[in-house]
């Protein structure tokens, strides 16, 4: 049993020096968060349309200018509205969106807690 565990641990440790092919993490993160407005439900990162490509170039430019991630989201929100952002900001429109699931979780927990005996 222990032998098995040790071999497992070795197995797991091995492949993690991965051949990382990295570039542009930041740009990817931002473009994954922007909706391609002329596509049916794709992010700018996923899409290859003219609009998406222009947007990617513009995100690059803004990053070079030194804008932060949030500033870039603000910039696009000003131009195209909230619809372009995939991460809904917490504002008066979205309180219910973010809080309702958590509320349901708490209610569920309360119902279960009521029917439990704690002492042995």
């Amino acid at each position, binding site marked *: 049993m222990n032998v098995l565990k040790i071999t497992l641990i070795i197995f797991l440790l091995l492949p993690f020096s991965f051949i990382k092919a990295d570039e542009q993490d930041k740009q990817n993160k931002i473009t994954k968060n922007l909706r391609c407005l002329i596509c049916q439900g794709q992010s700018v990162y996923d899409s290859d349309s003219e*609009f998406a490509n222009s947007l990617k170039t513009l995100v690059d430019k803004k990053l070079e200018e030194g804008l932060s991630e949030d500033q870039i989201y603000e910039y696009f929100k000003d131009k*195209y509205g909230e619809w372009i952002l995939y991460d809904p900001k917490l504002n008066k429109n979205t309180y219910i969106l973010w809080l309702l699931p958590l509320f349901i979780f708490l209610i569920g927990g309360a119902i279960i807690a009521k029917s439990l005996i704690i002492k042995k």
Partner: protein
Amino acid sequence: MKKKLLSFFMVLVFGVIFIIFYKGLEDSNIYTPNINIKNEIPVFKSRDFYSGISLNSSDIFEFDKTYLLNIWSSWCVPCRQEHPLLVDLKEEGKINIIGMNYKDNRKNAENFLQDLGNPYKEVFIDLDGTIAIEWGAYGVPESFLIHNNKIIKKYIGPLNQQLIYEMKLLVK
């Protein structure tokens, strides 16, 4: 009793959900942006199409004048359809038409204007599409009615007779 209350409550909740879905069906699901916001035109830099000289947005757009900015490309099929209307509009002389050549090849664009006519007072270029995004455009063709350096109206897609007619009314 408690059960009756609960069942009544469930029926109510689902009834409300039904109404909301019903109304949701009636509305269009295609997002049409709010095209009536009076936005300032963006500040940008570009190059003149023919001469290649650098331009600032302030060089092209003056305060107190009315312009129609038209985004076009030689590879864009609906642009061909709306182009004659622009040529006619130019003839009437009331509105200054400015062209933004979008992600285009110089030769193809020149041929396009040669074949179909040049309605533009000035043409500048947007090679990578970023200037179009500065304007909040979605693609080609798209047009903006501008007055006092503010966007009065945005036209997504090709112009047609009806839109041009409305445009003229607005200008008056």
